[in-house]
């Protein structure tokens, strides 16, 4: 139920997001235009020919004027502009498509993060000081100690190369990514690599929270009433144990969004993260700024979303 206070809070946050996005986009716009080089120059395109192209794409205008034109394009035409690298290609459909790919990868990674993290955390807590606990907490430590790009590279080496050689091309992790959204097989390894890193933190926090909760009186009371362990753990303990987990959802989502930049580049996934890096190298200014702006919007809304989830998980929180 959205209260008036909540609506005001959301309104304030939206204004803040808009302000942040404008600041971020201008900052990025300014910086990328200051980078040396451009998208057009070649042995055949220089001198007068280059000046013609710079003029055509408005790149000879002062940067604030270019930014103003870019902003006008967004608000008046819903257009992020045209690509400089792929001459004249409208980039809005391009980045929206890439956003959907990144969302699919990020969403899957998030499911893996929460699924693995919470499951491992609960199991480790209920089997405290057993081999299960030691194994799962060790996996968690590995998870948050090893960067996702290392997991990704090892995954490719093991499942893409070694398994392929071992089975003489019979079974292997298929590379490269095919089409826009790949296949379930192609998605699995990058999603695990992206999600595994943050799942370690969730495991650790869930375990600690569960250990705290299952020693509470109401849990003892539930058991005394004769409820089976499964019900006690899943219905009574877990919900309260998830409150601290929710508190790190924001950083977790942001970690997945930013982590996708690396993972998408390693696996060649045609998402925003890959585009972000490519566009910088290609001096495709409009694309770089567009992608960065979308990231800023995503992170702003992710934080807002997590803040709203708090109120659902913990009714004591009110805005």
């Amino acid at each position, binding site marked *: 139920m959205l209260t008036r206070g909540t609506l005001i809070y959301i309104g304030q946050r939206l204004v803040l997001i808009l302000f942040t996005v404008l600041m971020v986009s201008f900052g990025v716009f300014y910086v990328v235009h200051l980078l040396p080089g451009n998208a057009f120059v070649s042995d055949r395109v220089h001198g007068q020919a280059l000046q013609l192209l710079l003029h*055509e794409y408005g790149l000879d205008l002062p940067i604030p004027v270019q930014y103003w034109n870019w902003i006008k394009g967004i608000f008046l035409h819903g257009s992020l502009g045209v690509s400089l690298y*792929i001459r*004249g290609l409208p980039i809005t459909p391009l980045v929206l498509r890439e956003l959907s790919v990144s969302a699919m990868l990020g969403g899957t990674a998030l499911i893996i993060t929460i699924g693995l993290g919470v499951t491992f955390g609960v199991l480790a807590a209920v089997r405290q000081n057993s081999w299960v606990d030691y194994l799962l907490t060790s996996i968690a430590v590995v998870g948050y100690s090893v960067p996702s790009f290392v997991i990704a590279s090892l995954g490719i080496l093991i499942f893409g190369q070694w398994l392929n050689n071992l089975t003489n091309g019979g079974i292997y992790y298929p590379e490269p990514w095919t089409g826009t959204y790949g296949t379930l097989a192609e998605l699995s390894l990058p999603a695990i690599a992206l999600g595994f890193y943050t799942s370690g933190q969730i495991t650790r926090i869930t375990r600690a929270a569960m250990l705290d909760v299952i020693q509470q009186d109401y849990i003892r009371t539930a058991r005394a009433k004769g409820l089976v362990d499964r019900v006690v753990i899943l219905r009574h303990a877990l919900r309260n144990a998830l409150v601290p987990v929710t508190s790190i959802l924001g950083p977790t989502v942001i970690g997945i969004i930013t982590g996708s930049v690396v993972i998408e580049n390693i696996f060649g996934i045609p998402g925003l993260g890959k585009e972000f890096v490519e566009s910088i190298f290609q001096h495709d200014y409009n694309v770089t700024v567009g992608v960065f702006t979308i990231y800023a919007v995503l992170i702003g809304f992710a934080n807002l979303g997590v803040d709203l989830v708090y109120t659902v998980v913990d009714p004591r929180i009110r805005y």
Partner: protein
Amino acid sequence: MSLRPTKLTLSVGTIAVLLLAACGNGSGTTSSSGLAASQVLKFPVYQSAGTFDPGEADAEVDTEISQNVFDNLWRFDDKLNLVPDLATEVPSQSNGGISSDGLTFTVHLKPNVKFNNGDSFSSKDVLYSWNRSAALQGPYVSNLSAIAGFAAVQKAAGSPPSSKNSAGVTSFRQTLENKLAANDPSLQMSGLTAPDANTVKITLANACGWCLTAWSLQGSTGSIVDQKAVQTDPENWWSKVVTPGQAGGMVGTGPFYMSAYTAKQSLTFKRVNNWWGSPKPTLTEVDIAIHDPSAIAGDVTAWEQGSYDLIGYGGNSSNLTYPLIQGIKGNSRFASQLITQPKGRTTWVSFNVGWPQTGGPFQGSSATALGLRKAFALAVDNTALASTVCHNVQCAPATGGLITKGLIGYLGDGADPLAKFDATQAKSLLKQYDPTGKLTANLKYSYNAGGLNDPVAAFLQNEWQTNLGVSVALDPSSDASQFISNRLSGKYVMARDGWQFDYNHPQDWFDNLWGYLVTPAANTSGFNDPTYNSILKQADQLPIDQALAQYKQLAKILADNVVYIPLYYSVANFAIRSYLTGAGSNTQADYYWNEISIQQH
């Protein structure tokens, strides 16, 4: 108090299932005999096409792909011979196609040609395409510069307006298209006329011995486009797929048309059924994945697994790194499927010869500058370079002049005096012209980082240190466009330089790189010699058989003036599965797709 062990099993099982889902398996196509049932060619490229519009195409990937969609009046065959394409014959004075003064070309067109959307083709399409290219002022517009009225069209077309948004960009092309549709005389080159539907007459402002080859450059200014298709979307027509029954799209007269395009991701081309030309394409479809260059290792694995049929097409033959090449060679299943082909690309070191504002010890024509340039050239053993850096796999020593082996104008193995490694003479020259070492102190070698450029730079640094005792600092540039920009404006004292030929004619090298006759010239060294320019002007006007001696004279002038240090000729490496026939490359470009077929495997 514990969860049942089955829960743990289930959790682990979920991960196992997910991992198993990640596992695929290879499969091949089969057919009862000969050709494979599936004639779909698949390969990756490592660069998105900037544009397929022949009037504006620049990068190799643009033209290597679009050469299968667009035709020219003539084209290069697999052995780089000029053969008729849309024209009935290659014009010459003997067949009456070129007038005795060399100024008028009469071109007869094949009568049965159609665009691959069914539109008819005639001489008007040639006029439209070439006038449009002249007006667009793209990277290869100078290929048309000898045609009478060329400059007037460029002037009339003007410059594009500065864009306020994407609509602003379109307006320039839209205006041009409107004028061309209305046959606006200001955009018609006076030297280009169509006496009838199957004849084109080209009148030159001055004799031009290289024009025929330049007009034949695939996917470029000489290629023929369909006016109706372009008019549907003057800005982006080339990125639109061709849909039967609908106007627009990337329409040419070639054997393939674009059926799907996902920017920065993939391209699909389909065979034109009942195509007018020959050989008729066997492939029904060509699927191209657009990848980041860093994906090459994974792609080689995918190629081995059968996901791709070849690697290296689309101007990506230098992407296979030495470790990958060794990996393929070391695998008995695939070793024979690695194809090596010399490429028409030469790399050398340029000196600043003619840019006073940049200065440096090599600048000018004094005996000291010349002597020092020669010392630095003779101190480099490019045979050792090819062996050390390229392992004699990715390049060959450039010993026969700047023009690559196999091309018109190649001087012959070992014919370039600057390629003769002579450390003793080099040291002696240095001692003579810079006895104190003052002039050659603080020298820098500038290059764009990446690929072979880094190990080549390190090799050169070592050569100059070892053979001359001169310490040269390395000045890598992580941004290639900035490096090119600086190099073209003469900002480097000593820099990596190179050229990949466009068409098989010495003019492509001597004019673009050290001349000032075509614009924009890429004269990075600033070399400007009246004798050179005079000979170049004469040679450019003569048929190649008469001009060759003069072009060789130009090569000698460059060598005598020690304008460069020859390093290496590039060698292309393709991974081509053995079941492909007709796939490969010459020094210029990939073999056309309509020559390829997939055999049963």
